[in-house]
């Protein structure tokens, strides 16, 4: 199934953005992002701690809605999802 992953700010600089992946059915949000981030260790370390858990400040969205990062392992990805991963916002 096709999923789009968007990184922003420093995550984008390290990992790129608008990444379209062919994700395995039943994959959870944390697994999806771990697989993609694995291609760049610096990017991975920005997002995940040594246990492979999202760092506290990392913000996740699915289709424009916030997902608490502690809920990521229970969040199953669906076909056509747009996932966003970003550091704390700093607009204004």
């Amino acid at each position: 199934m096709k999923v789009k992953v968007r990184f922003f700010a420093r995550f984008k600089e390290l990992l790129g953005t608008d990444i379209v992946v062919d994700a395995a059915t039943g994959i959870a949000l944390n697994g999806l992002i771990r697989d993609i981030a694995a291609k760049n260790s610096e990017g991975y370390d920005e997002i995940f701690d040594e246990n492979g858990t999202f760092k506290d400040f990392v913000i996740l969205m699915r289709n424009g809605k916030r997902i608490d990062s502690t809920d990521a392992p229970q969040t199953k990805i669906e076909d056509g999802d747009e996932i966003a991963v970003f550091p704390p916002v700093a607009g204004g």
Partner: protein
Amino acid sequence: MIAIQKEDVDVGKLIDAAKQLGTGAFVIFDGIVRDDDIVEMELEAYHDVALKELKRIAEEAKKIHNLLSVDIIHRIGRLAVGENILIIVVGAGHRAKAFDGCRFIIEAIKAGVPIWKKELRKNGGRWVPGEHQHGTGKI
């Protein structure tokens, strides 16, 4: 007008366009690229989500503070020192509501709209840390 765009806006024209029956006060916030030893500022937005969020904040502010009009223009792209980053124009019947409404909007934008700033210095860049928000904790 609620927009995320590269182009600057004419504040006077925004005010004129926002005037309506009952308006007695405008309070305008204008955020500026500050000369913190930087060369330029680069702004990035998660455009669709940020725009939806700005619209939601404007509606919420109108309801809570009984505002007559809200305009928000958040700029993105490369901005030089002294350029406008964010302009908020709030119209209300009286000054207290206009002040409270404008303050509510800027604080809400700082807290939760997906936009990021990078300070570009002679010796490299630095992403501005956010004032708020974590990915965990359902506050």
